[in-house]
C-alpha cells in the first residue's frame, strides 16, 4: 500500500527528532491521527482537554528542553483554540510548530461547515511561516521549512492540512521545473560579535564604577560566565522573571527579580548604577531601568531585532550569550574599588530579612508569602517550577530562592 501524505508527515516529524505531539482530535485532522496511531511506537500523541493547553504544552516543551514543540488540532474551532498558547510561544521566542486540519480542498470558499480562513487567522502569530498543503509533493518542504524556520527564528510556524490531502498517496517532488527539494537536520550556530565591538563594549564596562547586570531567559547556559564577569566588574545581577532560574539566588550579588514584582535591591541597582550590561533579556518595563541617558549601556542578544529596544544601548552585541561573554571576559579589568559591590551585598542580605519578616506576619487564614517562604527550602534540587499569572507570580518572583539545577518558567 502506498504511503499516505499523513504517514509521510508523521515520519518526517520523527526524522526531525520529534518524539511527542500535544493535541486534540477532530474530523479535520483524522488523517494525521490515523498516521500517529500507526507510528505510535515512535511518536507519542498526548491528548489534552483543550487545544489551548496543547499549545501551552508545546511551548513549555520548547522552553524546558530547547527542542521544537509540536501541537496539533482540527479545523475551525480547534484551530482557534490553539491561538493563546501559540502567542505565548511567539512572544517568548520559542520554536513551536502547529499542525492544523482544514476542510477538503473542494469545499474551500464555499462557506462550508467550520470553514475558517486559517491563513488569515494564523497570519499574525505564525507570520514567519504559514502555508497550506494542497498537493502531496508539497508536504515535504512544508514540514521541513516549518521546523527549520521555527528553530532558526525561535518562533511559531503553522502547516494547514486539508482533510482530503491528508489521505492522498504521498509522492516525492518530481525532478522537474517548479519542484522543491528540501532536507532535514539543524544545529544552532554559536555566534560571536566582532572583536572591535567586543572591545568597545569592554571599554564601557571598564570605565564604569557602578556596574549593573540584567539577565533574562536568553542568558540560560551562561551562568558561569555571568558569575565570573560580575566578580571582575564588582557588579550586582538582577533577573527578569523569565530568567529567574538562570542564576541561583544564594549568590551574594544577585538582587533577584526586577520590575513591579521585583525586589528593592534590584530597583536600587538600576537607579544607582552608572553602567548597565543586559544579557538575553527583553524586560519591557522602562520605569525600572535607569533613566535614558543616565548610564552607559551594553546589550547582548542572539536576535538582532531585540537590540537597543528597551534602552538606547551604546554598544549592541548580536551573539550567543555564553560565547559572547566568554569572548568579552579577557578584555575586562578587575575593579579594585569594591565599595559598590559591598553596598549591594549588604542591601541584598537586608532584603532577605525584610522578606522573612513580611512572610512571618500573621494573616487570615494564611499569609501567601509565608507559604512561599516555607516552600522555597523544601523544593527538590532539580525540580521544575511553572508559575501562572496573578499575585502568585509576585510571591514566586520574590520569595522563591532558586538553586543551581532548578528550571523555572511562566508566562
Amino acid at each position, binding site marked *: 500500500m502506498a504511503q499516505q501524505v499523513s504517514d509521510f508527515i508523521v515520519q518526517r516529524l520523527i526524522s526531525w527528532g520529534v518524539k511527542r505531539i500535544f493535541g486534540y482530535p477532530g474530523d479535520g485532522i483524522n488523517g494525521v491521527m490515523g498516521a500517529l496511531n500507526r507510528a505510535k511506537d515512535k511518536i507519542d500523541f498526548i491528548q489534552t482537554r483543550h487545544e489551548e493547553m496543547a499549545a*501551552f504544552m508545546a511551548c513549555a516543551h520548547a522552553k*524546558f528542553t530547547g527542542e521544537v514543540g509540536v501541537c496539533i488540532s482540527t479545523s475551525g474551532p480547534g484551530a482557534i483554540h490553539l491561538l493563546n498558547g501559540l502567542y505565548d510561544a511567539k512572544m517568548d521566542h520559542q520554536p513551536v510548530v502547529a499542525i492544523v486540519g482544514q476542510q477538503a480542498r473542494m469545499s474551500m470558499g464555499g462557506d462550508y461547515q467550520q470553514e475558517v480562513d486559517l491563513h488569515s487567522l494564523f497570519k499574525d502569530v505564525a507570520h514567519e511561516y504559514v502555508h497550506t498543503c494542497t498537493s502531496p509533493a508539497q508536504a515535504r518542504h512544508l514540514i521541513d521549512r516549518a521546523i527549520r524556520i521555527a528553530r532558526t527564528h525561535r518562533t511559531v510556524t503553522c502547516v494547514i492540512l486539508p482533510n482530503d490531502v491528508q489521505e492522498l498517496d504521498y509522492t516525492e517532488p518530481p525532478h522537474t521545473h517548479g519542484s522543491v527539494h528540501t532536507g532535514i537536520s539543524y544545529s544552532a550556530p554559536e555566534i560571536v560579535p566582532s572583536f572591535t565591538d567586543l572591545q568597545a563594549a569592554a571599554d564601557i564596562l571598564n570605565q564604569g564604577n557602578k556596574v549593573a547586570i540584567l539577565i533574562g531567559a536568553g542568558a540560560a547556559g551562561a551562568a558561569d560566565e555571568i558569575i565570573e564577569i560580575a566578580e571582575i566588574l564588582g557588579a550586582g545581577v538582577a533577573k527578569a522573571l523569565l530568567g529567574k532560574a538562570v542564576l541561583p539566588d544564594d549568590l551574594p550579588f544577585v538582587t533577584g527579580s526586577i520590575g513591579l514584582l521585583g525586589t528593592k535591591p534590584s530597583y536600587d541597582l538600576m537607579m544607582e548604577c552608572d553602567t548597565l550590561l543586559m544579557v538575553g533579556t527583553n524586560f519591557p518595563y522602562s520605569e525600572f531601568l535607569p533613566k535614558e541617558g543616565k548610564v552607559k549601556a551594553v546589550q547582548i542578544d542572539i536576535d538582532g531585532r531585540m537590540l537597543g529596544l528597551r534602552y538606547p544601548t551604546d554598544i549592541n552585541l548580536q551573539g550567543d550569550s555564553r560565547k559572547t561573554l566568554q569572548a568579552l571576559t579577557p578584555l575586562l579589568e578587575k575593579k579594585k574599588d569594591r565599595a559598590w559591590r559591598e553596598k549591594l551585598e549588604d542591601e541584598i542580605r537586608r532584603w532577605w530579612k*525584610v522578606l522573612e519578616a513580611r512572610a512571618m*506576619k500573621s494573616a487570615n487564614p494564611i499569609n*501567601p508569602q509565608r507559604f512561599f517562604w516555607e516552600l522555597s527550602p523544601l523544593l527538590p534540587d532539580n525540580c521544575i517550577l*511553572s508559575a501562572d499569572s*496573578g499575585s502568585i507570580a509576585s510571591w514566586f518572583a520574590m520569595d522563591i530562592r532558586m538553586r543551581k539545577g532548578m528550571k523555572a518558567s511562566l508566562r
Partner: protein
Amino acid sequence: MCPGVPYAIAAKFAYPDRVSIALVGDGAMQMMGINELITIAKYYKRWPDPRLIIIVLNNQDLNMVTWEQRIMVGDPKFEASQDVPAFNYAKYAQMLGLEGIRVEKEDDIIPALQQAMNTRVPVVLDVLSDPSIPPLPPHITFKQAKNFYSSILKGDVNAWDMIKETYKEVIENYLPHKA
C-alpha cells in the same frame, strides 16, 4: 493566564524523573486548570517518578487585578468582576484519584508540603490564602499611594484588612533588619 498546569505537565513528560511543580491562582484553576487535572490523572502512571504538585493559592479573588484596580486606577475592588466562586480543589483532585490536601492554617504548611513531596501520586495543595496581603512594588510612587487611599475612601469591601496588612508590609521595609 493558565500556563501553570500545562507547563507542569509538559515538564513532566520531558523529564519524568524530576519533580514538577505548578504555582497557580484560583482564577487560572477555574479557567482551565481543573480540566487539565484530568489529563494528569490520565497519564501520571507512565512517569517513573509521579510527583507533580499543583499549588493553588485559593483566596477567592482575582487578586493581582484587584490590587491593580486599587493602585493603578484608584478604584475600590469591583466585586462583580473580582470575586472567584468557592471551589474545593483538594476534593476535586481526590475525586480524580489524585491526592488533595487542603492547607487551612499556617501550622499546616510544612507538614502539607512534606506530605506532597513524599506522595507517589500527583498532589493538589489547596492553600487558603489571605487576599488582603498586598503584592507591593519595590518602589511606591506618589500616584500609587494616592490611588490606594482613594480606593479606600470609595469604600473598598476589604478596606480595614487592607489598611492593616499594607501598614505592616510597608513598616517592614523601614525596620532596621540586621543582615
